[in-house]
């Protein structure tokens, strides 16, 4: 909502200066977006300095100048003035500028083969003097002003307010003045009485059809006969220009002016182009009309249209049609001032995708009692500017509008705001806002002003009082530290812990969109359905992600393409399994690319591999408080992992869902996405699948027990079938005597020479220790033999001798 302070002062009597007015606007809740001079054509003329001037290669009388216009680079300008020389301060006009003298618009052009970006101006061209001999010469004083505007802005300063959707009344200058007056910074001026002579009846018949879903409830109008439409007078043009709009003709400009002034949209028809009568009715599907934006619209059922015998004239409250539009030749006009229902306006404009100033206002709610005020103001002005005779007003109504009421209990104000003000002051504030008040002892019966559709209940009254009184009166109470429950629940603690746990292993945490490219997503989608976004911001962000990996791998590739080789990224966040709220899981996805050691003076280079991924996965789970010995590792993983170099982790055997996957990423995916890396591994951890433990970690610890008796370590090497997993072997050994066998560690795996093709050799180190005595040779011999015989019988392995 734009207006000038002068315009505001037509409605508000105040001694305050501009700055005070601006501050008060903010204080009552009318947010000031900007307060600046209206743009002017003269803004394009800039103080400049000629850095260099050289002879034009193809023309004796022209020079090619490098001009400093306050930007990082100079611009080239071809100039014919004899005084264009190095070091001169002058006035520059860029492409797009309009030269005051001849109204010529500048563009980038080639002058004798050299491109010239704009022009250096003479005083004559700037209409400053008649001197056209050479370009303007400015003194050294302008050194500081290079790049700044040469002309001081003479345009009025324009206030731009951001009006919240609940305040349609402030989409008019008068409404703003009323709010300021209520806040005590002046008084609202009375609207001057009209001296209109209305000697004849409005004889163009107007009917509002009584239909279901009729979007118009009041249609007021008058005829103005014998006008001579013309260019608007200067004062009106200035007003229109200050809004950033273009003046069109007196009649159109006046209707626009009244709209901004009183927030009262109007429409002027060329009465001679209306066929017989005006009918306000619902449209029928397929009806068409050409609107004033020069577009042809095809209508649906039940849109509110203004029509005549020939068809649709316009969409009520949204946009008029070309057929009945006013022109400079128009002699007789029909002026419309109507009330359209916000719901109807909104529905129609959404379906047709039309946005106009009128639509914006009707959609928020126009004062239904402003019909006549609008007609009076516009008719007065039209008569004044264009002449003509004004008819009596014709007001058609479907129903009498009723006055809305609310009962306000005084105590509510203090209850909500925490501070008290006198009843007297409350009454003053709301009566200044236009409420009619019937005072009771503890409460007020209020009649709500017709221009405030947003006010319906007592809380709205609290807001009115407190915003006018001032938010600075609200106390700042010290927060109480009382607590209802712990800050984080178990799952949230797990989230925060795992997040930092993974980061502590060298991974950079990142945050990527929750949506992704369906093409990449499909590589990681597995069994999930694709979740399309109906209106994505771009076709490569068109689905919700089913996995963390699509985005992570996309950005990993970007970094590799930037020249980074060894990268570790992770993200913790949602992945989606369905379109319903809650069909999502919280997952950690981590990717690592490149080598473990690179260009290292101590270590041999090697690629990252599945066991790096496994280490980070297991260690993260262990740090979260789970016992490593109890984890179950299986060799199944989703298809985007390398089928032979990936696995899954389960918290226990009964668990149906794995809490994590790890492995090398499938080479096909690396190839398909053209990721240029030595190796790519990843892991995923599913936070939702961590079962709730019965006890907290602090209560899970058993009694501290230890043995001081001597322990013994013994190495074994077994030759076993390749299919048998190392973990099976370990499980067999551990289960032989859980009290004695304290630890089993694989320290070598060998395949190849001296071992049959389908076999492998696994070497294990077993620690044996009793908690009751020092084991003697005989005891050790016994347990060693038991280990060998049990492993051999249970796994078909042979001890290597």
């Amino acid at each position, binding site marked *: 909502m734009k207006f000038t302070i002068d315009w505001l002062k037509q409605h508000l009597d105040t001694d305050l200066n501009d700055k005070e007015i601006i501050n008060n606007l903010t204080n009552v809740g009318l947010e000031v977006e900007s307060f600046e001079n209206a743009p002017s054509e003269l803004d394009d003329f800039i103080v400049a300095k000629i850095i260099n001037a050289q002879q034009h290669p193809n023309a004796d009388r022209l020079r090619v100048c490098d001009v400093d216009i306050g930007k990082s680079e100079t611009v080239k300008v071809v100039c014919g003035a004899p005084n264009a020389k190095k070091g001169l301060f002058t006035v520059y006009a860029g492409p797009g500028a309009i030269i005051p003298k001849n109204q010529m618009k500048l563009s980038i052009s080639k002058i004798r083969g050299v491109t010239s970006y704009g022009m250096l101006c003479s005083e004559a061209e700037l209409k400053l003097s008649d001197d056209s001999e050479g370009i303007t010469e400015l003194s050294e004083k302008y050194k500081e002003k290079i790049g700044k505007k040469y002309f001081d802005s003479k345009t009025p300063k324009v206030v731009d307010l951001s009006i919240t959707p609940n305040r349609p009344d402030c989409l008019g200058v008068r409404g703003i003045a009323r709010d300021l007056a209520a806040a005590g910074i002046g008084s609202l001026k009375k609207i001057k009485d009209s001296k209109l002579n209305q000697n004849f009846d409005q004889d163009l018949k107007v009917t509002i059809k009584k239909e279901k879903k009729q979007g118009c409830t009041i249609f007021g109008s008058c005829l103005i006969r014998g006008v001579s439409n013309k260019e608007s007078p200067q004062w009106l043009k200035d007003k229109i220009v200050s809004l950033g709009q273009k003046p069109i003709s007196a009649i159109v400009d006046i209707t626009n002016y009244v709209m901004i002034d009183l927030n009262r949209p109007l429409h002027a028809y060329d009465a001679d182009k209306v066929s017989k009568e005006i009918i306000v009715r619902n449209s029928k599907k397929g009806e068409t009309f050409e609107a004033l934006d020069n577009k042809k619209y095809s209508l649906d059922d039940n849109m509110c249209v203004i029509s005549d015998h020939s068809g649709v004239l316009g969409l009520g409250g949204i946009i008029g049609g070309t057929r009945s539009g006013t022109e400079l030749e128009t002699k007789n006009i029909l002026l419309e001032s109507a009330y359209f229902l916000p719901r109807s306006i909104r529905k129609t404009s959404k379906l047709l995708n039309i946005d106009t100033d009128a639509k914006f206002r009707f959609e928020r709610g126009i004062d239904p009692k402003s019909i006549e005020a609008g007609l009076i103001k516009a008719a007065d002005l039209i008569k004044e500017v264009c002449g003509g005779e004004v008819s009596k007003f014709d007001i058609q109504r479907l129903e009498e509008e009723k006055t809305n009421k609310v009962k306000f209990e005084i105590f509510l104000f203090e209850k909500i705001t925490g501070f008290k003000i006198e009843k007297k002051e409350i009454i003053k504030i709301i009566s200044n806002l236009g409420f009619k008040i019937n005072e009771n002892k503890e409460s007020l019966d209020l009649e709500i002003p017709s221009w405030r559709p947003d006010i319906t209940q007592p809380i709205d009254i609290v807001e009115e009082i407190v915003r006018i009184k001032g938010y600075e009166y609200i106390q700042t109470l010290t927060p109480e530290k009382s607590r209802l429950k712990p*800050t984080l629940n178990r799952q949230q603690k797990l989230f925060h812990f795992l997040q930092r746990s993974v980061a502590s292993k060298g991974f950079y945490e990142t945050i990527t969109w929750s949506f992704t490219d369906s093409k990449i997503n499909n590589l990681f989608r597995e069994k999930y359905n694709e979740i399309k976004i109906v209106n994505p911001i771009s076709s490569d962000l068109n689905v919700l992600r089913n996995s963390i990996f699509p985005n992570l791998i996309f950005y990993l590739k970007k970094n590799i393409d930037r020249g980074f080789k060894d990268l570790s990224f992770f993200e913790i966040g949602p992945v989606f399994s369905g379109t319903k*709220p809650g069909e999502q899981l919280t997952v950690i996805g981590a990717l690592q690319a490149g080598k473990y050691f690179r260009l290292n003076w101590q270590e041999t280079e090697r690629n990252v591999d599945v066991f790096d991924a496994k280490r980070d996965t297991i260690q993260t789970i262990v740090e979260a408080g789970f016992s490593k010995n109890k984890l179950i590792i299986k060799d199944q993983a989703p298809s985007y992992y390398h089928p032979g170099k990936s696995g899954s982790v389960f918290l226990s055997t009964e668990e149906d869902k794995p809490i994590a996957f790890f492995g090398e990423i499938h080479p096909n995916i690396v190839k398909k996405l053209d990721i240029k890396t030595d190796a790519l591994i990843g892991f995923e951890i599913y936070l939702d699948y961590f079962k709730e433990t019965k006890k907290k970690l602090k209560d899970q610890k058993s009694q501290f027990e230890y043995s001081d008796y001597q322990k013994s370590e013994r190495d074994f090497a077994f030759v076993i079938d390749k299919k048998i997993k190392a973990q099976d072997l370990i499980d067999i050994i551990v289960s032989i005597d859980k009290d004695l066998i304290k630890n089993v560690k694989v320290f070598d795996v060998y395949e190849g020479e001296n071992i049959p093709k389908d076999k492998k050799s696994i070497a294990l180190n077993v620690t044996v220790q009793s908690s009751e005595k020092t084991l003697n040779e005989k005891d050790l011999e016994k347990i060693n033999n038991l280990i060998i015989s049990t492993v051999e019988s249970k796994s078909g392995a042979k001890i290597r001798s």
Partner: protein
Amino acid sequence: MSDIKKIKDEYLNKLDKDQNIESINQIKTELFGKNGIVSNEFKKLGSVSQEERKKFASDLNFIKEELQNKITSKIEEIETKEINLKLENEKVDVTLPERDFKQGKIHPVSQVIDEISSIFSEIGFSVEEGPDVENEYNNFSALNTPDNHPARDMHDTFYLDEKKELLLRTHTSPVQVRTMLKGKPPFKIIAPGRTYRSDSDQTHAPMFHQVEGLHIDKDINMGHLKGCLNYFIKEFFEVDKLKMRFRPSHFPFTEPSAEVDIGYEIKDGKIIIGEGDKWLEILGCGMVHPNVLKNVNVDPSKFQGYAFGIGIDRLGMLKYGINDLRAFFETDYRWLSHFGFDPLDVPSSYRGLSR
């Protein structure tokens, strides 16, 4: 006596000469071995007369001790010399690079969420969460924003179905609705999380983060709201002085509503929070609208309170001098390395939010 004195002098002399471990051990044997010189002198004790015996024994012990000390110190001296020589040869160039350590990083948004949670934890708030996909009712209608209300235009919404019933939440306010529907007042929660709007340019990202706050009890008024936010902003920006301005505004789900500005100034190209005469809008808040309370089965005549919504990314940008919102979500290794936080840097009240 003179005999043993002579022995002593002779061997002390010998020991003072350049010796090695072997030769000293040789001397040790010569003196204290089974048939060593000193050992043999001790054997003579029996044959010494009663009156001389005491003195002889005392002298002999004295000499024995002296020689033994000498031998021990000599051995120590030689060993030290040998070790020093060995260490000298083992010297490495310590300016060579240490073994690699992979430093991980926490994303600034996560760090800021932890900071926010820590601050609100101090004044008794707990953290609630809600789904990213919401239904139309929780995101709009329950929050007093019916379909025909122009306020909906302020949110550019991503939809998941043509009927516009399923959407990506445009703010964290639906968590209010969920929290109140599943529980009974009082409520004292914050809800940080991802939010989505379908506009995208230099200052807007299609996804960003908000934290919602909600405190409902019997007598929570605007003074509590002001106090809570004043406390939060001061703690978050770690400043003693704070210029804060409450400005009337409008949100469909709160009434009265306010926007909150904080004072700032630019010093040497850096933004200083809490001073200066420029205003920066940082959040929206208000008293929860009675219609919202009714929608979630809370009786507005018995309970009331406030709600607020803060842009997390923007707070992070202000606190840590980050200019470009979109860079948060572009996973640039260099950017994450520059703005990311050490995982050990867990924000807490006792040791401060930031270092």
